[in-house]
């Protein structure tokens, strides 16, 4: 039959489909990059100043590092979290519910799996870049530049990929935008405080340390500090593994959640 030969069977996760969704994001970014960059830069700077000088006046070193070294590397994870999970949650919900962008995209030759994948890749890339901001700011406050810093965007990207898919998943399951409050208070805030960004987890009770090891954000903090301050060790591969597994699980659940939402 003529139809069989007219075009080859189109598969899953095709590059043109991913590119199409990414181009839409990049073109849109050109209209709001100023505000996004402003908030991504100012927030970590405030954290650095508040904790750096606030804490810094009480303690001279944390685990043998200056507060600028400690907090400047630790807040990379905070910046990655904020610039991935929040845009993913709110952006997905707005594009689905208010702008109906996803109706238009799914009417084109793009599947939900490709849509979610491209959106999370885009958010992760942004998070990888914005995640470096606290570190760069810290350099101006006395953090010594090292070659290891070049690994930080990639650590931020991998961490951001998991949290971007986490955000898309939350938006996929949420009935209303108010539901996000539960996630922010009950999930993101504890994980962000239990990541080791501001204080070491070693002095916490055993159960909190175990929880900390399961926290993908803590893996990000440790990897960034290894890259910038004390060099990688073999067990850092395990930390990378945790981030990869986290991203993979969130990716599949996010696709499932969005399919339920977008296809009826």
């Amino acid at each position, binding site marked *: *039959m*003529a*139809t069989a030969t*007219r*075009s080859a*069977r*189109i598969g899953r996760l095709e590059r*043109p*489909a991913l*590119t*199409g*969704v990414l*181009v*839409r994001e990049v*073109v*849109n970014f050109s*209209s*709001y990059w100023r505000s996004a960059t402003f908030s991504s830069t100012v927030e970590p700077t405030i954290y650095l100043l508040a904790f750096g000088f606030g804490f810094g006046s009480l303690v001279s070193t944390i685990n043998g590092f200056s507060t600028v070294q400690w907090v400047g590397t630790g807040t990379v994870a905070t910046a990655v979290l904020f610039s991935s999970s929040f845009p993913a949650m709110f952006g997905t919900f707005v594009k689905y519910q208010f*702008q*109906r*962008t996803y*109706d*238009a*995209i*799914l*009417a*084109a*030759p*793009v*599947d939900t799996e490709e849509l979610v994948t491209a959106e999370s890749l885009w958010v992760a890339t942004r998070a990888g870049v914005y995640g470096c901001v606290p570190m760069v700011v810290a350099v101006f406050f006395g953090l010594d530049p090292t070659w290891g810093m070049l690994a930080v965007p990639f650590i931020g990207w991998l961490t951001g990929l998991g949290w971007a898919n986490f955000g898309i998943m939350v938006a996929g399951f949420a009935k209303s935008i108010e539901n996000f409050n539960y996630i922010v208070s009950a999930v993101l805030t504890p994980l962000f405080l239990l990541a080791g960004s501001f204080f070491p987890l070693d002095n916490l009770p055993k159960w909190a340390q175990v929880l900390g090891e399961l926290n993908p954000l803590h893996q990000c903090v440790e990897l960034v500090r290894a890259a910038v301050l004390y060099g990688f060790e073999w067990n850092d591969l395990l930390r990378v593994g945790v981030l990869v597994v986290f991203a993979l699980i969130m990716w599949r659940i996010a696709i499932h959640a969005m399919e339920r939402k*977008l*296809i*009826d």
Partner: protein
Amino acid sequence: MSEELAIRLRGVVKRYGPITAVNGLDLDVPTGTCVGLLGPNGAGKSTTMRMLTAQSIADDGELDVLGFQLPRDSKQARAQCGVVPQLDNLDVTLTVEQNLLVFSHLYRIGRQDRHDAIERSLELANLVDRRDTRVDKLSGGMRRRLLIARALVHRPRLVLMDEPTVGLDPQVRQQLWALIDQLRSEGTTILMSTHYIEEAQRLADTVLIMSHGQGVARGKPSELVMEHAGSEVLEVYGPPKRLAEVESEAGAAGLKTRRTGTSVSILGLDGRNGLDGFEGERRRANLEDVFVLLTGEEIA
């Protein structure tokens, strides 16, 4: 077989919990024609449109679009379809041209053809001098023209339009009709849902009237009118009590009637003169008479 039919639906059923939105629908859209899906709100038009892009998955029945079986091969079908949605989903902070650029990527137009495709769409929708305007600065009619231009950027073989002129001023609606008519004359296959009778009558080669998720009549608008409402209609005005009398008297004489708010229309008056006692205006029967008769619903 599939080459003559751009769309072929057989026995399509779609349920949402206890509600059956589409209930055994058959639909043929021959290649190169414009078919109108006409029905009141809730008749299942939009659900049918969503099933054609596999954004709704049918519970039962067969769906073929451009020779591809849905939902399995929907992606190939979508690559050759253009969709004009009922609700505006343009990127409002982008310019006209940027919106078209994004869709030229989503519809996989190669780098060397992209520029020409965008120019052609801008010209078709008469938006050339608005190319750098942000969408949120456009009028409602221009936004709607851009939605149509966006759906045509990849020269689709089939265009799906869900209520293309809903909520627009009459003169803007006529601009859009001219645009749709131009597409039709160029041989693009169009499936258009609407609840505006005039729109269907002017643009559609054939019409499928839908009610409660089923097709209740299909054919050329003029033939449907002749078949169901005859050539002429007597419209009788009066107070509600009088209208009720007219209805029962006409019913006793074997004539069909329909209410139009302030009047009763007595249908099927070809060559009959035995209507003494009814004072009213004679007029040509139209598709609206058929629509109300078959769906039992008034339209806005």
